[in-house]
């Protein structure tokens, strides 16, 4: 397995070439890059303050001043879409990264640790997984009120078991391999074994899972914001843009179009990229989700 990992490392240029040859992967890569750039550069790309009200311009269509029209309060839809991308990026980046790190750690501990700890953690993972994310979010928001941090917490908590279970399975397979036993007999500590030798061998599939998880997380945030349970006014989010637009769709379809297209493209981009990475790095993992 160590050899595989080293081999994978050495083959990276080849893998990159494979990605570039993969049409779907390339489309996904371009969409993902566009998503990152538009979100990161929103303050420079936006033409208006996304919270700036201009009531006389309410529900105007696309034009020179408002490229994608204006919403009910005359706010510039184009600028709000760009800033909405920052919310999606924040939730995706923080949510997925923390889920990955915590899930990886707990999964390795479960797989490498004593049986009782493994059982206890498995019970915990299964308990969390038994709660549908949206239902858990609705309950939490009812109790604590809507906020972006709450959404993040829900996303992290409900995503951890997927990463942890995958990491645990890989760790169990590695636990009794010769190179790990050799490390142990040479006196290496558990921490060193897990993070120096086990982690590099289990993280690959988790990274692919993370890429596939980004669109899920983005749609959870947009969904909750659509229901009025996510970000608070006046923060722009694709979900709130869709919600506000949906109610005036027959007066002005532009907010819905403008809020919907980036959501579709971003989820599509991450899905295509994730699938391409999975096919390239580990074809055996096809169909894990």
């Amino acid at each position, binding site marked *: 397995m160590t050899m595989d990992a080293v081999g994978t490392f050495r083959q990276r240029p080849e893998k990159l070439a494979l990605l570039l040859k993969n049409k779907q992967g390339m489309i996904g890569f371009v969409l993902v890059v566009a998503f990152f750039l538009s979100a990161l550069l929103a303050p420079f790309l936006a033409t208006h303050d996304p919270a700036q009200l201009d*009531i006389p311009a309410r529900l105007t269509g696309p034009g020179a001043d408002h490229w994608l029209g204006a919403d*009910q309060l005359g706010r510039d839809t184009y600028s709000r879409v760009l800033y909405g991308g920052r919310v999606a990026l924040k939730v995706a980046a923080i949510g997925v990264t923390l889920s990955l790190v915590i899930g990886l750690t707990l999964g390795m501990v479960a797989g490498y640790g004593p049986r009782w700890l493994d059982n206890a953690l498995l019970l915990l993972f299964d308990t969390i997984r038994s709660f549908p994310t949206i239902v858990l979010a609705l309950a939490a928001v009812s109790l604590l*009120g809507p906020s972006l941090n709450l959404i993040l917490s829900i996303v992290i908590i409900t995503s951890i078991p997927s990463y942890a279970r995958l990491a645990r399975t890989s760790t169990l397979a590695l636990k009794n391999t010769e190179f790990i036993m050799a490390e142990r007999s040479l006196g290496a500590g558990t921490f060193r074994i897990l993070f120096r030798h086990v982690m590099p061998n289990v993280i690959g599939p988790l990274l692919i899972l993370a890429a596939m998880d980004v669109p899920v997380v983005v749609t959870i945030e947009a969904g909750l914001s659509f229901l009025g349970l996510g970000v*608070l*006014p*006046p923060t722009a989010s694709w979900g709130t843009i869709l919600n506000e637009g*949906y*109610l005036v769709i027959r*007066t002005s379809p532009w907010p819905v179009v403008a809020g919907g297209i980036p959501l579709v493209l971003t989820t599509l981009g991450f899905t295509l990229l994730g699938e391409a990475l999975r096919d390239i790095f580990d074809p055996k993992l096809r169909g894990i989700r």
Partner: protein
Amino acid sequence: MTQTISRRHFMQAAAFAGTAGLSGVFPGMSFAQDGRKLTVRFNRDFDSLDPGFYVGGHPNNDVNWCCMPSLVHYGFRDGQATWIPSPFVESVVARDSTHIDFRLKQGLMWSNGFGELTTDDVAFSYERMTTSEWKSDYVAFDRVDIMDRYSGTIVLNQPFAPFMNTTLASGTGIILSRKATESVGGKFTTEAPATCGPYVYAWTQGQHVKLTRNPEWTGDAPYFDSIDALIVTEDDSAALAFEAGELDCTQISSEALARYKEKPPADSALTVAGALQYMWLGMNTEHPKLKDLRVRRAIQSAVDQASIIQGAYAGTAEASYGVVSPGLVGKRDSAGYSHDPGMARSLIEEAGASGLELTLRTLNNQERILAATIIQANLAEIGINVTVMPLDAGPFWEMGQESKGDTWKDLEIWIMRFGSGPDPYEPFQWFIRDQVGIWNWERWSSDEFEELFKMGIEEVDSNERAKIYTRMQEIMEETGAYVWLTHEPEVFIHRSDISAKFAPSGEMQLPYFSRT
């Protein structure tokens, strides 16, 4: 011979069925109105039929007026909303300012074997209201003198001008069966122990209320055999359902009203049920952040009412200058403050409150959120940072009530909307001293206000009542705890061949609906 259905055949058949449905080949599929069946919309689930302990308004009153008796209903005389005798009575006569004689129709039976509707039920129901959550409607009620099984006199302990319009004709004038109510311990919610009216109801929580003719009803028969009230919480979904023919009548949002005024759907009519809603931005005068009158005055001057009407209500709502709604005695034409951000900033600086952080709570619906967003922007201009907290109906309606937890202590500012009956007395009852911690969430009181409130109850001269209620609104405004926002019209769209009747407070009077 066997016949197989290929995928192509299936698709052809499905396409034909869809086209036929859309083109009206099967008219029954296209419109909700068939026979004497009416399909209307409730904008929320109903939660109680008990007039003493319910939230009131739509849809509770809509169901109550179909299934429960009352002495009078809302009607119109000379274009003005007023009370009319209900189908449950032979007569109702206000003999003088403190005596109301009535005679019930004979033979009106309660369901579930609880016997006939009698004067004793009327006495029981009104006496019960004096200790209920709606006791303020019965502040002038003294007793019911029972003449015989069907006749009686309501005796008031003082003249009470709004008694007929805001008490007896409203939802709190509903009559219950003494025996039935006592048999369930004196209170109930959605399962009335006995009903008596032209319809009986069946409720599927969160889905619909089905009203069908009451076979035991011996009074005048309503036009429709059955009424299906679908619970559709989203205004725009309801408008779409109306356009698709799934609903015969629905209340619509201001956004839809603006659209339908320009281009109404075919075979439809718009009816304004009333504009007896009054919405304001409330402030908790006891909260440490808002104790300083200058801060509250600053907020009054900072909020741009015109932008709220245009931005959140598409210009369809009327500007409010108090709690008295358009068309009622005491309605004001202007407020004692105006939109003046410069003055607001000065007041904030004077009070040393720059950078103040406030939480604005509001119901989680589109128009309120938009209004809250505008207020948030307005207050940001004067150095107040506002966090908008949208809430569902449950926690929202409990947040200022001391009996429902401790949220009232943290309450800072909020957007509130109440509805009233067609008398100016009604809105003021929620702001008297006794209502602090119940519905007076602004938590202030004034001796002059209390005195005027009593005077308004007894005064019958319209000009004098106008002076009293105008002054009361000035007192409210001087507390700085109110920024008047809008009077939203209650607008319904319905099929043009349906004669729809509404209470001035915006509920549907379904037994009076008919098709022309």
